[in-house]
């Protein structure tokens, strides 16, 4: 795998992460379902998953950048697995609305598991790391720049959304209203 092809795949990965963050936002706003604390932690892990690809796009592919993403995917899968187990008992309806038969945290677990698999596959190809000896930062095209700024913008929007949802206090376990708006009105 060439260095430029690996960078293209990293840019595609950033678009996939942006799609996940945007989808979570869309579900929150359209269904009026506020994310619980554990749901927020999983969103945070999806946003952190973007750090590895951003480093790869900026400095060129390195094994350590994939390691960054692997650590995040392991933590994210662990958080999602805990939420699945919390609602695994018979008769428990789960938290939030299901999407295509599965709750968001189940989809999050699938997403982190897929990320782990794809990252492991990427690490199989040594050819992408050879050019790093020159230490030259790669040229980033406009598609790459849009992907990076898109993810950063969505993460910044989550800062605002979480502040409005939780206010300056502790986030409720089962949030049903935006705490900051409630306090201001």
């Amino acid at each position, binding site marked *: 795998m060439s260095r430029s092809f690996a960078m293209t795949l990293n840019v595609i990965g950033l678009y996939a992460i942006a799609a996940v963050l945007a989808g979570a936002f869309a579900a929150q706003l359209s269904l009026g379902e506020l994310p619980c*604390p*554990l749901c927020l*932690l999983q969103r*945070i892990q999806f946003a952190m998953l973007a*750090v590895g690809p951003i480093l790869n796009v*900026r400095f060129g592919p390195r094994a350590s950048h994939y390691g960054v993403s692997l650590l995040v995917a392991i933590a994210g899968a662990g958080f999602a697995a805990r939420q699945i187990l919390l609602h695994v008992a018979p008769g428990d309806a789960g938290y939030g609305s299901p999407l295509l038969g599965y709750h968001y945290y189940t989809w999050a677990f699938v997403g982190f598991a897929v990320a782990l698999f794809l990252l492991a596959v990427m690490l199989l190809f040594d050819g992408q790391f050879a050019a790093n000896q020159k230490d030259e930062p790669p040229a980033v095209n406009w598609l790459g720049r849009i992907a990076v700024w898109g993810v*950063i913008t969505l993460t910044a929007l989550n800062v605002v959304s*979480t502040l409005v949802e939780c206010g300056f206090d502790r*986030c409720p376990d*089962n949030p049903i209203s935006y705490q900051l708006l409630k306090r201001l009105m």
Partner: protein
Amino acid sequence: MEFTGLFLAVAVVQLVAWRGARPLAVGLFAATLIAAVLTYLHHASDTLNLSF
């Protein structure tokens, strides 16, 4: 409040990864990941109501 702080920290890490020095980005990333895991462990030891 801690989740707002974590999202803010992630946004800063992403910005540093894109514009700043690589060692600083990796260091901030490590600190943010540890903070996220500690937040999880803190909440995981709470009484469970609905989702926690």
